[in-house]
């Protein structure tokens, strides 16, 4: 059974390489996009910490900033 799935009557190497290429591409793309996402969140957080108290309150008052901030807080970085 296992051997049958691996060999696929001689087409195994083609089928498995096509599926592996697809899945490896997925992992690479996901890793790159995730890395950029986390980096951008960190940069936002670092900048936000440097703001004065008044500026922080001003930013928190705007809905979009509230969403960004809660998103960063929820992903714990």
């Amino acid at each position, binding site marked *: 059974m296992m051997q049958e*799935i691996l060999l*696929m*009557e001689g*087409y*195994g190497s*083609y*089928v498995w*390489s*096509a*599926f592996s*290429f*697809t899945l490896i*591409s*997925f992992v690479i*793309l*996901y890793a*790159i*996009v*995730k890395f*950029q*996402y986390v980096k*951008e*969140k960190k*940069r*936002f957080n670092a*900048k*936000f910490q440097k*703001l004065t108290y008044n*500026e922080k309150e*001003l*930013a928190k008052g*705007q*809905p*979009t*900033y*509230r*969403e*960004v901030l*809660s*998103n960063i807080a*929820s992903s714990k970085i």
Partner: protein
Amino acid sequence: MFSFIDSSKIFSITSKAPKYVFFIFIIVLFIGLIEALVLSPKDYIQSHSVRIMYVHVPSAWISVGIFSIIGILSFGSIIFKNKNFSIISKSLAPSGLVFNIIALVTGSIWGKPTWGTWWAWDSRITSMAILCLFYLIYVLAWRIIEDKNRANQVTSLIAILGLINIPIIKFSVEWWSTLHQPSSIKLLEDSTIHSSMLIPLILMTAAFALFSLLIFLMKYNTEMIKIKNKGLDRL
């Protein structure tokens, strides 16, 4: 136009969505892979090599679909100067490009045992390779051009010009003699794929669509935070 869409409301959805999409994607992909590699039958003439179809065809569909969306959004982006359209287009491009590359590579792997060649310059394959070039130029233009408005205009024009290639890809197998076989699934006719092979094809298409949605959401959130990041300077 479209100003009624509150960007903070959109972001509150898109920032929470990725983890759910990821979860559903993994489940659908798992079932799809089992169906595609184990449960589905072999073909009467292509034997097990037909299984490559389950990664090749969904990738090709999705890369063509994503480019069509980018092209149409680019119209809106240029005509109505809608910023959200250009951010959505920009965020859609990476998964479209990757699916295009997957379609070309898996097609090549499929071609060797069935046609007897890795590559043929027939009109379907060539037009898909041209789409890949459009994707590359599109993504590079966003990276290279510093001025935001300029980048938006240039990329939109690239996408709109690339849109002309889409019907050529679709109908290439009907207009000219090609090595590539015609479409098996048509809008108005019965599909020429047996139902036992249609199941993994649909499951894999759903999984791939979920994956591009996931990548899109993460990319879109990155872009939104980038914009807000710049906004912090102006407080």
